[in-house]
């Protein structure tokens, strides 16, 4: 390429551009490594924070997915002046008539205590409540049995009991072998099953669960439900939530509380993202400090390498060639730091996730964004030193110091 004066312009091949830009890195390896370290730490924290929060959130979401967000709980309101309100007798039947409702299970509370044996003093009830339930409860909650089986039509009519996970632990019952009995409301009940923890109905974990029929026959249960577990069609959750109070208690719909247990898990996910934002902020600060470190090292490097700059100008380098050399050097420092940071961040995420039993999930935006951020920081950090190097006049650069 020639200009109007017929002069063939100075040219630098792409390969040579890279080679000149790595002169400083290769001749001062330790300094290069240390100055890239700041960026490494910043990027590593960004990647790890994003990776860990995504991994833990995905764990929560898997949990939500498994449990389903279409379970609703209907409870009698416990507002001022309501006393221990109860749901009307007809509640369960009415709820079943709502079209999108797939399953309804009623739970009533029984005024009784449960003990390991009849010799335990009655004051040591262990905080275990007794619940009278429909036999479809476990399916509605998508709960599982740890040991034995759940109540069925037959066993629900007889003095048999299924223990919630915490209730079983407090009673000291780990197995149902050998015809395990418990002393429940002044009579022996046979333990036929122990449940796994119920993630959507934690209160039942602390319950001894008996069939509604048995509760009425042996424990004086009045047959009135205190809460209903309602499984709806997933597309109609909000609609069902809206009509539930009036359906359950047409006279006083405001005395009915409808909630969705998975909301709590979703709130947990949201709370974790608030912390994520905080840690991301810290990562950005580390990144900026790393950038300042690179700028600092580059400014020093330009001062130290004045004679090299002078030589290159004498060999025919333009100001642009010199600027490009130093800018690229800063970019490569930052990029090296960024790559190291991504590896470190992925390593930390993988390690911690393995520890917690989560699936490792590194969002694409974490590592692409991390590398992009490193490049931007490198460009900004390299710009001023590169301009200084380019502005240096050849004679000034060659002057002996």
């Amino acid at each position, binding site marked *: 390429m020639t200009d109007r004066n017929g002069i063939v312009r100075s040219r630098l091949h792409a390969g040579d551009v890279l080679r000149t830009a790595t002169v400083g890195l290769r001749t001062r390896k330790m300094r290069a490594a240390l100055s890239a370290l700041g960026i490494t730490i910043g990027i590593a924290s960004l990647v790890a924070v994003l990776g860990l929060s995504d991994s833990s959130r995905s764990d929560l979401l898997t949990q939500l997915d498994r449990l389903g967000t279409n379970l609703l709980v209907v409870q009698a309101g416990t507002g001022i002046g309501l006393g221990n309100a109860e749901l009307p007798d007809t509640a369960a039947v009415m709820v079943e008539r709502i079209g999108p409702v797939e399953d309804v299970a009623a739970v009533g509370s029984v005024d009784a205590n449960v003990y390991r044996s009849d010799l335990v003093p009655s004051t040591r009830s262990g905080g275990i409540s007794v619940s009278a339930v429909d036999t479809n409860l476990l399916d509605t909650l998508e709960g599982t049995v740890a040991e034995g089986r759940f109540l069925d039509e037959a066993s629900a009519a007889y003095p048999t009991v299924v223990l919630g996970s915490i209730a079983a632990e407090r009673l000291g019952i780990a197995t149902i072998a050998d015809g395990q009995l418990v002393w429940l409301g002044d009579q022996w009940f046979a333990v036929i099953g122990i449940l796994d923890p119920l993630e959507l109905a934690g209160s039942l974990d602390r319950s001894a669960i008996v069939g509604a029929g048995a509760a009425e026959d042996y424990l004086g249960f009045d047959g009135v439900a205190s809460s209903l577990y309602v499984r709806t069609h997933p597309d109609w959750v909000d609609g069902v939530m809206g009509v539930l109070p009036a359906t359950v208690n047409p006279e006083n719909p405001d005395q009915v509380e409808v909630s969705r247990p998975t909301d709590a898990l979703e709130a947990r996910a949201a709370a974790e993202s608030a912390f994520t934002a905080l840690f991301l902020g810290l990562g950005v600060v580390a990144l900026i400090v790393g950038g300042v470190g690179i700028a600092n090292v580059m400014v020093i490097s330009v001062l130290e390498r004045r004679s090299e700059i002078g030589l290159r100008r004498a060999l*025919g380098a333009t100001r642009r060639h010199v600027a490009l050399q130093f800018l690229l050097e800063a970019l490569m420092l930052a990029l090296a730091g960024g790559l190291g940071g991504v590896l470190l961040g992925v390593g930390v995420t993988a390690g911690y996730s393995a520890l917690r039993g989560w699936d490792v999930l590194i969002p694409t935006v974490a590592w692409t964004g991390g590398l992009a951020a490193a490049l931007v920081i490198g460009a900004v950090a390299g710009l001023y030193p590169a301009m200084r190097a380019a502005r240096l006049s050849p004679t000034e650069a060659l002057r002996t110091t």
Partner: protein
Amino acid sequence: MTAPEAVLDLRGVTKEYPGTPPVRALRGIDLTIRSGELVGVVGPSGSGKSTLLHVMGTLDRPTAGDVHVAGYDISRLSDRDLSAVRARNIGFVFQQFHLLDGYTALDNVADGLLYTGMSAADRRDLAADTLGRVGLAHRVTHATSKLSGGERQRVAVARAVLGRPAIVLADEPTGNLDSTSSDAIVELLEELNAEGITLVVITHNPEIAARFPRQVSLLDGLVESDSAAAGVGR
């Protein structure tokens, strides 16, 4: 007789550095260097030798006067154009060698044409030949930091003459060398001149300058004497 083409022509060149009072490093230099010449520019320190070299090498612009290098009027050229002129037409040899330590002799010499757009492979081929020419064929793959002073300056000379530029400017090329290495470098410069390279050697040492066919003596920013002044007509 027709004189060879002028590769460097200075007319009424002055150079002032700002200050109080301003420093007048060059006070009106007229000098013509023709193709094939070997010129020693001699003068005590402060006589303006280094400034003259910078102006001749287009590293600096004169305050006043005309400078033509390889046919280009440098006052009409941009900084970018001057870089291009240096890349192809001017070779430099410095007192401090200015080699990139950590690189091999071959790479240092090949860098002589780094900014011309010549491919790396061609540059290296040419550099290997040129290193052989300056007597360093056995040092091609050595890092320059491992070479002796005389060898380092040979590498620098090889780098300067790599593309056979119109003119090679040497600034105190023997200033950092012992007398044996110094003699060897002067001999090398004489040999290269015999092969057609145009050379200007700046030195404060009159003995070295005296060995060259033409001597220009500087004093206080002016040409005090020029052995060729009478000889070459215009």
